[in-house]
């Protein structure tokens, strides 16, 4: 069976049951593709075993890039391209460069983080999102399990989901 095509969906009504179900499912050796919920559920990323976000490193990298770019840009502009005397200061003087450097650092860190977030979450423009179940935007939590990557067979998974408190267990296929 191909990966990322055929899914079993467990539908849950309550977030406490959901978190217990996530733990039970994972301890049964089943890989969870994703859990969809209409609101943020506290502690869900711990239950899913997600590690720390690497976003701070991205922020630092882009911020540092901004610092370097800003300094190089101003050095080039004021030192070589179009030197101007402002207030009798040197052409290349560090203090007046600092505000621009600060702003570009912040700007690049922020835009870089937004961009990285969109790329890693596949949020490109005109991307048609997969809808596992319409009720995830309303009042149901949905746990999606990819049959293609799990060695446990479908009946077993269904049984475990039902036992863990799912109100429905559905199939979903994407072609």
């Amino acid at each position, binding site marked *: 069976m191909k990966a990322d095509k055929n899914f079993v969906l467990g539908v849950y009504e309550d977030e406490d049951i959901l978190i217990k179900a996530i733990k039970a499912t994972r301890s049964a050796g089943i890989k969870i593709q994703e859990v969809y919920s209409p609101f943020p559920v506290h502690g869900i990323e711990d239950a899913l075993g997600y590690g*720390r976000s690497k976003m*701070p490193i991205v922020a*630092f990298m882009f911020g540092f890039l901004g610092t370097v770019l800003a300094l190089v840009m101003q050095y080039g502009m004021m030192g070589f391209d179009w030197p101007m005397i402002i*207030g*009798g*200061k040197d052409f290349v003087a560090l*203090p*007046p460069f*600092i*505000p621009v450097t600060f702003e570009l650092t912040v700007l690049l860190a922020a835009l870089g983080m937004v961009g990285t977030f969109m790329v890693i979450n596949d949020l490109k423009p005109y991307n048609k999102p997969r809808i596992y179940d319409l009720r995830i935007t309303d009042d149901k939590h949905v746990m999606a399990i990819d049959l293609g990557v799990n060695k446990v067979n479908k009946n077993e998974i269904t049984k475990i989901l039902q036992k863990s408190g799912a109100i429905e267990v559905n199939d979903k296929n994407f072609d």
Partner: protein
Amino acid sequence: MSDEKYIFQPETKKALIIAAVLGIILVIAGILTTGSGSHGADEHQTMVNASENLLASTDHTALVAADAEGDHHGETAPWLKRLFTNLWINNVYFTGIAIIGLCFVAIQYAASAGWSAGIKRIPLAMASWLPFAAVLMIAVWFVANHDIFHWTHTSLYGADGDDILKGKQAFFFWPLTGEGGLPIFYILRMVIFFGLWYMFFIWIKKEMLAEDLNGGTKHWFKLRSLSAIFLIVFAVSSSISAWDWVMSIDPHWFSTMFGWYVFASWWVTGLAGITFGVIWLKEKGYLKIVNENHLHDLGKFVFAFSIFWAYIWFSQFLLIYYANIPEETIYFIERMKTSPYSWVFYVNLIANFLLPFLLFMTRDAKRKMAIMKLVAIIVFVGHWFDFYLMISPGVMKQQGGIGFMEIGMTLIFGAAFIFVMLTNLAKVPLVAKNHPMLEESLHHHT
């Protein structure tokens, strides 16, 4: 919740007393090595010449020269002048840490903060230094005013006096004039500020301790109102005390950022003090209810306000740099380009901005006690340099420096401060067991 109490161990007392004695020895060594020679006069002349060259094209020259003559009024020996300078630096520095303790407690109440419920006794104990600070500050002012504060010389306000200071005399001498000699308004402000701070300290402390006995939310609501009023009082008084105690040392110079600048420096030092105190107690086995989530919040405070300090520092610097008005730039020329101070100027920036910024940037660093202790110590030393740089160049001119006397005096003040703080900490329960938000603090998660 058990009634956890800090016990002020004899070993700790002994260590503090040894530190203080060592401080006294260092101060004496400093006095002996500074001596009473007048070799500083030549250097002083060079500096006046330098300023004259710098300001050659402005009529400000006359003013600087007058300033220089003014300094020769008193015949105070260099070592005594340096001793007074040191007393004043440490007074301002430790008064700041003490009042920030109270300010921190007040902000926690005014903001209805829950996370800090378990650690408020530490900043409260820091504020116990306030009465000692008040006595020391006022006593040192009366002994050393002519040496530290140029504006106190009455001859400046006569017919051929200093026009700039004449314009400012009401701020110091009201209802008298400058020739009257006693700066009543100035002294009154000092007394009133310390009085108000101490009054609010007693008031807030009383309510906090009453809450331990009675429980309920009545005390919390009263504390919140008290804190809000105190914060308004402190907002005004901290600014004015910064002008009075620090900025008026360079009486011809002024900066509209200065109140904020001193507050930022005090505030981040105070936060480092709270952080260090909490960690120190935790390592001794106290404060079990404080975990790395609370430390993380304290770390975020120190990190954020180190940046805030740098922001204020830079805002003040950039305006003066760009405007390039001689009477303003002289302040930075004295500090940045003049001999005993220029290294302190850069150390100040590295220790107070660059190091905390880089060391505290990651989440893990703000949750590890070893790194937090390191950063707290860097901030303590860095902001001591900051106050040194605000005060010493204006008083000592080129005769200043950092030697035995500076280290010794800081040791004496530091040991006394910690002694008073720990004595008062030992008197009350370490944890406010009836604080309505203690439960929230226990489950705090960042």
